[in-house]
């Protein structure tokens, strides 16, 4: 049997992050391919009840210790090292997220294991693991091989389906009781997002409106869609100038740079000033009456048509789909 694959589960404020399920999903696939067990490690106070959600793993190591809450990378890796030693794990999966950033590298420094960053695909090749890393802001992909399947892979969030990592079954749990040194980096408190307007840079879904929305009243149609999708409305400059949306919603050169999973460009022609602010969105859906609008040159999905007609229908259909 090959060495186990280990997932460092990520949680924030008592909730398992999506990246954890993404890692469990791809971890499960890799584990099946190489014929190895899949383990997860979960740290932090009140961690034990959360372990039940990690059913895709064959076993979950839980270190339920308040000192491990948002603990510094060195502290987390000390725990990970113990688990790796104990379980003989070969491949370790860590999230390439803000919460977990640096843990993989620290582990690599401490164990000498090779690390592959920014992974957005992973395959088993015999006992080897082949990872695809997304470099230079997505301009270049690089295939990297871990010949003996041993190493650390940092997975890019959003690159793998989270659903594949979800399970209703509760996994077996092994409690870790480890002494934790007083860390030199201590968590003090959370600072909540500034209240007031929505921060459009943090949204997964943005419904962007341009001149094609025609009037302030019509912005409500976009608001409706954003609401059912759990996103927010943003706008191009002409709309902001008209005062139909506050400045905090402006996307583009002079506004915000956004990178949601889905960006609707509704009645936005795609002026470079706007394009600059949203070009890195993972999926751009453009709707415009003008088939020659430059937005169609860069969008992923294009629709030539009237936004005002489409919006209510789409909103209803999304509502129906979500149930």
């Amino acid at each position, binding site marked *: 049997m090959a060495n186990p694959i280990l997932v460092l589960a990520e949680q924030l404020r008592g909730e398992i992050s999506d990246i954890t399920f993404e890692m469990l999903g791809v971890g499960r696939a890799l584990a099946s391919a190489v014929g190895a067990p899949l383990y997860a490690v979960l740290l932090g106070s009140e961690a034990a009840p959360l372990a039940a959600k990690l059913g895709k793993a064959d076993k979950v190591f839980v270190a339920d210790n308040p000192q491990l809450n948002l603990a510094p990378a060195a502290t987390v890796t000390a725990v990970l090292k113990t688990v790796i030693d104990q379980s003989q794990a070969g491949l370790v999966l860590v999230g390439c997220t803000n919460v977990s950033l*640096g843990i993989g590298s620290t582990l690599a420094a401490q164990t000498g294991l090779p690390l592959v960053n920014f992974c957005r695909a992973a395959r088993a090749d015999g006992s080897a693991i082949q990872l695809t890393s997304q470099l230079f802001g997505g301009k270049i992909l690089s295939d990297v091989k871990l010949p003996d399947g041993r190493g650390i892979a940092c997975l890019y969030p959003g690159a793998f389906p989270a659903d594949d990592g979800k399970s209703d079954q509760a996994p077996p749990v092994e409690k870790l009781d480890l002494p934790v040194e007083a860390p030199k980096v201590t968590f003090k408190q959370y600072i909540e997002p500034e209240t007031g307007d929505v921060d459009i840079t943090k949204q997964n879904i943005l419904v962007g409106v341009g001149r094609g929305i025609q009037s302030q009243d019509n912005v409500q149609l976009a608001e409706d869609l954003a609401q059912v999708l759990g996103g927010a409305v943003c706008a191009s400059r002409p709309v902001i100038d008209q005062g139909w949306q506050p400045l905090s919603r402006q996307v583009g050169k002079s506004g915000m740079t956004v990178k949601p999973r889905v960006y609707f460009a509704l009645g936005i022609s795609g002026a470079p000033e706007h394009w600059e602010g949203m070009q890195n969105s993972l999926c751009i859906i453009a709707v415009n009456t003008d088939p020659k609008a430059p937005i169609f040159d860069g969008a992923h999905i294009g629709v030539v048509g009237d936004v005002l007609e489409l919006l209510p229908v789409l909103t209803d259909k999304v509502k129906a789909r979500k149930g």
Partner: protein
Amino acid sequence: MNLYVLLKMVPDTVEELEVAADGKSLDSEFLRFKLSEPDDHALEQALILKEKMGGKVTVVAFDAPEVDDVLFTALAKGADRAVKIPLNQASLGTVASAKVLTEFFAAAGALTSDSLLLPGSQAIDDLEGELAPLLAAALKLPYIGVVCGVTGDAGKVTVLKEFAGGLRGEFEVTLPAVLGIQSAEKPPRYVPVAKVRAVMKSAQIEEAALASPEQPIQLDIERMYKPEAAGRAQMIEGSTEEVADQLVEVLAKNSVI
């Protein structure tokens, strides 16, 4: 405060990136380098700390095309010392870079009880991992990344780390330490060309002679390639109903509903 900012040159993605003939690296002929953006923020954060707390800012960089301009610009902005390590950064991976820098900082007197090392939180070519945690681990210093604000105090700093959705966490870090800076409190300042030119005439870049590690990049890179071009949008046609149905599928595929 004894502030060290580690500046790294990365390929400029405004230029077309081409894969070299070996299929495993970038074609250097088309490559142009610019300062990694988080590093620019690290410099700004260091300058802000210096303004508030006093102290000295030293910028450190490996050799790379246009790096002198970047170092002089840093001096023009208010850094006190610029040190160049004459090893070609392009041939070193992050792991090897960290090793060289560990040696640099391990040198007698470099690290004091009020030292703060400020690399950028990450860089677009961090295939082997980020510099900040690698360096911290080797120097056995406390580390935190994705930092978006630092306030100084005696023997410690309070930092803000960005999580997601606008949520941030406040941490206290004992000095000396390594902070991976994601963004400074304020956007990096502009320094006029005339000022940089004046600095070029008056200031010096120091060189630190350090040995190159034996095995620069450890990973087994099989190939590098460009992702398939996105090209023109995939056009959806049909009645409003049909279009809406297909869009719902698109949304589902992107796992947002």
